[in-house]
């Protein structure tokens, strides 16, 4: 029970932290922000790895396999595409340099 209460406390604190973190991001960056937070909830991959490692019949293993596949797709695709987007938000000076180089 103690454990659950601590988890609950962490849940509440993390919720407030999430609110605070996002409130100050300008509209300009909302699409990359959404894409990056989208990649972060790919943390579910950790859960997939834990559950696939536990014993179980074939169908449970298959469910775990699909979960890990989905999770990896979420993480890798999410961070990759965010990086692609943000690479376009170069400061103006850097852009000029790059063109000359």
């Amino acid at each position, binding site marked *: 029970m103690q*454990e*659950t209460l601590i*988890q609950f406390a*962490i*849940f509440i604190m*993390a919720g*407030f932290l*999430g*609110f605070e*973190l*996002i409130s100050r*991001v*300008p*509209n*300009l*960056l*909302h*699409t*990359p*922000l*959404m894409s*990056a*937070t*989208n*990649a*972060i*909830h*790919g*943390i*579910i991959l*950790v*859960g997939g*790895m*834990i*559950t*696939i490692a536990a*014993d*179980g019949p074939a169908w*449970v*293993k298959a*469910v775990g396999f*699909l*979960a*890990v596949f*989905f999770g*990896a*797709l*979420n993480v890798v*695709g*999410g961070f*990759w*595409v965010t*990086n692609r*987007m*943000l690479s*376009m*938000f170069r*400061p*103006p000076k850097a*852009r000029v340099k790059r063109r000359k180089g």
Partner: protein
Amino acid sequence: METGVAPFLAYLLAAALFIIGIRRLRTPETARSGNTIAAFGMTVALIATLFVIEFESLLLIGAAVVLGSVVGILTAQRVQMTAMPQMVAAYNGVGGGAAALIALSEFYHLSEEGSLGVVAGTTIPLTVLVGSVSFMGSVVAFSKLQELAFTGSVTFPLQQVVNAVLFLGILVLAANAFLEGEILPFLSPVASVIAVLFASLVLGVLLVIPIGGADMPIVISLLNAFTGLAAAASGFVLENYILIIAGTIVGASGTILTRLMSGALGRPLGKIIFAGIAASGGSKQEELGERPVNDVSASAVGEYLSDEANKVIIVPGYGLAVAQAQSVMKDLVEALEKGGTEVLFGIHPVAGRMPGHMNVLMTEVGISYEKLLDLEDVNPEFEDADAAIIVGANDVVNPAANDPEKDTPISGMPVLEVGNAERVIFIKRSLSPGFAGVDNPLFYDTDKTMMLFSDAKQGLEEVVEAVKNG
């Protein structure tokens, strides 16, 4: 599951890296490194997890991770920036699907051990529900945005009743799973959870099909929050702190972003989710259609811009992206600036199909983000602007939204006050009132407004030519 001290500390490090990463997304200069830091945090968490689990399953995990990564890299590398909303929806959906599958599989493990407590017993059906809704909702959102199926608002009689009955059924199935088949003796607990999964998939479809394309930014944002919460919930099931922390941060941030978005549309979230948008104004159009407009040629627009305008504010809408006219837009900016004209952009928070989407599309063609101004920042600028050019947009500049005497689907939405500029130039294919179906009184202000009826790309190309020659 016991985590052990070292993996626990690694999870804490990962959480800190996520927070630092998101913090750095506040400015364009630091955003890219923020994403990299968050990705590094993810790597730390994944490696730590390898020390929590049995090593024999490494092969299976490796195969699934490699497969997922390959598909992820290929899709992320190839996707067009205009298709970003559906790509994010797709990645979000698979995350939700993963959460639902993990919860199902954990339910099996716990009920085999006979250690299904109150926390897991209630959290698992919840995770399955939210994860599955997020998965199928994202699939529908994807197919709407990609224009594969369910385009527009799909409704049928008694839709809300069907949704309510389905939701009730899910609650009964969940209770049956928790009470080990006491309500429905023919369904085993595991079978009940599987039934919750399938019923929730159907619910996900039904919840999103009535919502139209222009409200998609909100749906994607909301589903993003859902998946975050599903990840947090599965953290309670697996007693894993990093899942709780990271999932909750995303859930909370997704929720506040969703509220910001619906605020930018001037409509409460509930109205969007439960009503879709009722396209109205059909009867009004006939009487207004006959009114005269100031129909001009591209060369007239070019002449005005090069001779009279010292300061121009451009308002790009999704029609610009549909016409693939972003690079021509860049040409226009260059041509105008060469003639000494100051050019700014006014970007409405819901321009495009995702919050901030239009900013990404403009920076992609090399327009500096410093020229892209938010609603609040750009509105005072219209006062001394010589021209406002609206390309492929209507609802976000429609003064009817703030007319207290009119009741329209966009009433209450803050708009870009283009009417304060000296001249207003619309580049648009026809007088059609746009997605929300509300006529724009600016069209008929023949002294102020120039209407250039053209496809966004062709119209801009002709204007660029005219500006260069002027």
